[in-house]
């Protein structure tokens, strides 16, 4: 199918937004990649995926094949593969579309990925609020079991796998892969110390790989068409396409699958963009020609993150934006480490004071201090540093807005 060569992840999706049925998926070549994969050696699949330069779509952008290669291949006993479907990064709504629109694509990707690390048990870790996705994934999993895509001795390959659906009970930190493991074990979802990394000691102390939904959905296409084809889809060094999204102050919010490295778009009449979820630095007009891939956005001083941009117009108060973001992070801090648990509420209160005209001298310095004391290396996981990314860049970019709030004792945007 022609569209599959441009938009492998979404070309098959139905315009009415119903889930692609198993029959439709099979007719379009679905589960053929699985048949092909099971005839290859697991390390060969790891190599192809590594060479394809598929980078983790959860936001960190680590090379997927490389991540898999840290799993010990000579160990006996259970290994686990987990699809991270706990999509909760503010402004991010791409995995929802993949889960609801083409559940079998994810299942096929999971079976191939599990085979690549010889994992015999797999989970989909789904957030509770994705009720429609839960219903559709459950149905698709039953269909896959009935057809023998899941279960014992898949296609007489000797490889067995089942996928269980775990519906979480809601906490942003569950998206952090080691916190996710604790949640699956029925514990408080606080992050774990690394090392050991999950690939060596993960769920119940067994080797485990956690991959994002979009990442795993790419895998069947890479196996079907090869790493060279996959790299060719991209306009940059990173392989493949990317599901980009825009929400907020734009005419047409939505999602688009485009070549990795597509530029942000020129001529936008916006104050700024938050490029990839709440925990990334602001980008402004001068950056709209930046290619949206992991390295290029990094060079521009931010992170691509989830690739779903939040557009902020010039009628929206940047102090208000930051206050809303930090309120979210303060609420969702798991409370495990002191800088995050105590620092984020302090940041939120300080921003509220500035926004509401109760600022005290030294408040900007308090915010700046947190930008350092909650930064990378000072906290247990990436939540607080992620919360500091928009704050640090906001303090630089919107300094005059902060000063006006303090001088005028309130929010100048509310005056009119």
């Amino acid at each position, binding site marked *: 199918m022609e569209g599959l060569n441009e938009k492998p992840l979404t070309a098959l999706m139905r315009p009415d937004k119903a889930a692609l049925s198993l029959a439709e998926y099979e007719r379009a070549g679905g589960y053929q990649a699985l048949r092909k994969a099971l005839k290859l050696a697991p390390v060969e699949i790891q190599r192809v995926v590594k060479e394809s330069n598929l980078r983790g779509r959860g936001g960190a952008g680590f090379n997927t094949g490389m991540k898999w290669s840290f799993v010990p291949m000579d160990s006996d006993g259970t290994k686990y593969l987990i699809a991270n479907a706990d999509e909760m990064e503010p402004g991010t709504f791409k995995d*929802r579309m993949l889960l609801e629109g083409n559940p079998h694509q994810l299942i096929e990707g999971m079976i191939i990925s599990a085979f690549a690390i010889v994992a015999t048990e797999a989970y989909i870790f789904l957030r509770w609020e994705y009720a429609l996705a839960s219903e559709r994934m459950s149905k698709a999993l039953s269909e896959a079991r009935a057809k023998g895509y899941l279960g014992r001795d898949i296609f007489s390959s000797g490889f067995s796998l089942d996928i269980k659906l775990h519906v979480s009970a*809601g906490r942003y930190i569950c998206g952090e892969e080691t916190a996710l493991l604790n949640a699956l074990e029925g514990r408080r979802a606080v992050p774990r110390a690394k090392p050991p990394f999950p690939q060596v000691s993960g769920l119940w102390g067994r080797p485990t790989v956690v991959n994002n939904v979009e990442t795993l959905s790419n895998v069947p296409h890479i196996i079907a068409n090869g790493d060279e084809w996959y790299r060719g889809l991209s306009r940059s060094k990173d392989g493949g396409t990317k599901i980009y999204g825009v929400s907020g102050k734009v005419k047409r919010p939505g999602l688009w699958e485009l070549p990795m490295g597509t530029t942000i778009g020129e001529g936008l009449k916006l104050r700024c963009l938050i490029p990839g979820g709440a925990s990334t630095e602001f980008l402004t007009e001068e950056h709209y020609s930046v290619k949206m891939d992991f390295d290029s956005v990094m060079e521009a001083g931010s992170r691509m993150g989830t690739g779903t941009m*939040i557009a902020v117009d010039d009628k929206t108060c940047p102090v208000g934006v930051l206050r809303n973001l930090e309120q979210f992070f303060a609420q969702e801090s798991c409370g495990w480490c002191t800088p995050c648990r105590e620092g984020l509420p302090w940041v939120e209160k300080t921003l509220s004071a500035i926004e509401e005209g109760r600022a005290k001298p030294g408040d900007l310095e308090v915010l700046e201090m947190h930008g350092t004391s909650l930064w990378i290396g000072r906290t247990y996981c990436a939540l607080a540093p992620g919360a500091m990314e928009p704050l640090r860049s906001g303090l630089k970019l919107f300094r005059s807005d902060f000063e006006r709030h303090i001088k005028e004792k309130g929010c100048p945007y509310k005056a009119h």
Partner: protein
Amino acid sequence: MLSHEEKIEIEEELKGAPFKRAASIDALKVVQRHRGWVDDQGLKDVAVMLEMTPSELDSVATFYNLIFRRPVGSHVILVCNTITCWMMGCDSLLKRLTERLGVPLGATSADGGFTLLPVPCLGACDQSPVMMVDGKLYGGLTPEKVDEVLKEHGWKG
């Protein structure tokens, strides 16, 4: 005492669990499904089935946003108040909801009909502002549409 149905459903969850505590969140959800929330006695009874202490299980129950350790109304409204919905006007929805139900965010209406809670990003930012009632998502909302949604769920204002 757990009801017969609750016990059977929790035992079903335990079947798929490699260790009993792995079923803790699912077991709590079973109780919540039947009672609307997880009361102290329910928590203690589940702890016995999972071979955990009640405080150990409560440390799990209180960690998660959607396990309710206090009574909630017949319908639970989750309103997204995170960045995109905030920019697109969730405050006007919240204003309308608190007026109609006569309670602030975080509380249950006097007739026990509705509990109003904030929720982090519902992952439907292309339809902002959004809210969820009893697991059903509503997008592109205005204060007027909020009234319609309330009526759909039996609000008689």
